[in-house]
């Protein structure tokens, strides 16, 4: 059986998805990146290997997410794709008539506008991480509420409190104030959801034409409180698609399937033994010019696989000569 593997290495979580040749999901994994992308990719590969049907063969690998280049080198990916394109492709696969995609992840959030099956506009959060999952994560830990039970408890709120959502630092002092006034934790939790929804709509989605069907995905879509807050704000039904937390990985797998079908190339996948290999990254400052770029070097058993981080291709060029190792 031919299968296609997509890996989405985000800042907070790493997602892997394996599709068969009819683009049906065979298995998916959702792991915490914990600042160690390489180890997590290897762990994810091990899990996929265990979960794979015995007759399956990997015919294409694609990576996406903020560590897509690193993951691409480690895996021997056939395709390295940005997360906006992969998310859009996967959403259209499950909800073909989608017109608006709201994606809220750990460190970034996006809006993708789709008309007639084509992405026509998109937006991402700017330098500030206020409108993202880490905002909820951070505040939940302050209130000593696990992020898993956050949504359910928020739904119990009867009189949500108003919390300034423009900036996490402001929100925090506002929230502490409300907490010390004696408000119920449930009301504060739902207040936070509303603050995040407002923040998202006023920043990331500012000026975008939000038309139904509206699909909400990414890790934060687990939070029922957020779904409700967005529905209230937008006055429309919010669809949370199946496998919403691994859609980036699914999109990557869909794209690499499409591409290998067109060009007929054999996969560059390094095989499951990759999960046992000893990868090592090191950094150094290039002295060739006054820019002093920080070059990252990825090596396997002492041999350099790739280098990146430079403003010119001086170091990347030297690395490609080792690519066949």
């Amino acid at each position, binding site marked *: 059986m031919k299968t296609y593997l997509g890996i989405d290495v985000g800042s907070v979580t790493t997602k892997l998805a394996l599709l068969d040749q009819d683009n049906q999901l065979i298995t998916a994994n959702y792991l915490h990146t914990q600042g160690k992308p390489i180890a997590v990719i290897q762990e994810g590969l091990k899990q996929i290997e265990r979960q794979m049907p015995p007759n399956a063969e990997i015919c294409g690998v694609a990576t996406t997410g903020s560590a897509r280049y690193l993951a691409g080198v480690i895996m021997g990916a056939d395709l390295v794709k940005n997360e906006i394109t992969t998310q859009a492709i996967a959403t259209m696969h499950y909800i073909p008539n989608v017109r608006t995609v709201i994606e809220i992840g750990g460190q970034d959030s996006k809006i993708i506008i789709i008309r007639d099956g084509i992405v026509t506009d998109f937006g991402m959060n*700017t330098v500030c991480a206020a409108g993202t999952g880490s905002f909820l994560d951070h505040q939940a830990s302050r209130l000593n509420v696990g992020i898993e039970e956050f949504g359910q408890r928020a739904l119990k709120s009867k009189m949500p409190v108003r919390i300034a959502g423009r900036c996490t630092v402001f929100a925090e002092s506002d929230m502490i104030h409300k907490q010390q006034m004696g408000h119920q934790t449930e009301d504060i939790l739902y207040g936070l959801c509303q603050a995040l929804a407002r923040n998202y709509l006023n920043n990331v989605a500012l000026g975008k034409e939000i038309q139904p069907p509206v699909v909400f995905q990414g890790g934060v879509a687990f939070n029922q409180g957020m779904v409700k807050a967005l529905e209230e704000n937008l006055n429309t039904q919010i669809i949370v698609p199946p496998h919403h937390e691994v859609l980036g990985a699914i999109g990557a797998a869909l794209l690499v399937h499409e591409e290998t079908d067109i060009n007929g190339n054999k996969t560059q996948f390094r095989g499951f033994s990759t999960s046992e290999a000893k990868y090592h990254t090191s950094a150094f400052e290039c002295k060739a010019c006054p820019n002093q770029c920080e070059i990252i070097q990825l090596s396997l058993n002492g041999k350099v696989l790739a280098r990146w981080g430079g403003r010119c291709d001086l170091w990347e060029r030297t690395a490609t000569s080792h690519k066949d190792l």
Partner: protein
Amino acid sequence: MTTRVGIPRALLYYQYYPMWQAFFEEFGVETAISPPTTKDIVTSGCSRTVAETCLPVKIFCGHVLSLADKCDYMFIPVIRSMGKNAYNCSKLLGLPDITKAVIPESPPILDIEIDANKSKYSLYRAIYSLGRHFTKNPLRIEKATKKAWKIYLAYRQKMSSEGLMPTQITDKMCDKRHQVDLAENDSPPLLNIAVIGHPYLIYDDYINHRLITQVQAMGAKVLTPEMVSEQALDAAMTSLVGNPRWTYEADVVGAGGYYLQTKVDGIIGLAAFACGPDSMMMNIIQRRARQLKAPFLYLTLDEHTAEGGMLTRLEAFLDMVKRRKRGQSCA
């Protein structure tokens, strides 16, 4: 010993360097250019200026610092206005004073104020007092001015008629080592992408994380405001907003309007974070692009050193444009 005038490779440099060089050359004065922006230049500039200053001005100060001990004068012209009731940003107007305040070790500053709202006489007087540093003969100053203007017109004309970027001309003039090596691809580019914004953002590879090279590497031809004649830019600007409010509005509103009319595949707007005029001018183009359903990507540049965020947006933008184009050609 020949006198050396320092010209920072920042802000107005990209628009006017050949003109300035020609002017000073007439008096036998050498020009010293600072090197292309580096990490050191940015760091030293940022360390002297207050946090609220925009990145281009911080970088400008870094360039002045790198030239401070290499020249006898520092040339910092002030372009107050180039057209009726259109003025430049206050930071650019105060540039000689900012420099004096934050870089006391700078050699004497040569400033000249150009203001189209004042009489022709005041323009002559401004140029004359600049030339007076090198000669007492007004005829020589007049000759230098005429020559410099001719050079400027030729420079502008060459860029718009041959589709060149300023750096493709100026880099040859001032430093052979930094020639931009634009690999000419024989196959026609898949996409035409216009990059609009001020030249000091578009052509400074450090500030924009090699945006032009990156877009070209993704298979697109890059079009910039300088590749359009001033008349065409002005016409496009007038049809959008009437009379401009800002001196360099043509870089943004003119170029954006022009490239929207000519139906390029996509437009990338480059602006500096904390730039007031840019935030307003880009908004005009953003709205117009939305009306016309034209792909528009707005990138704000600041002191970030990680280019990942920009790459993700660029890749997604070009993917979007490619898929849209494919979808349209199928329909």
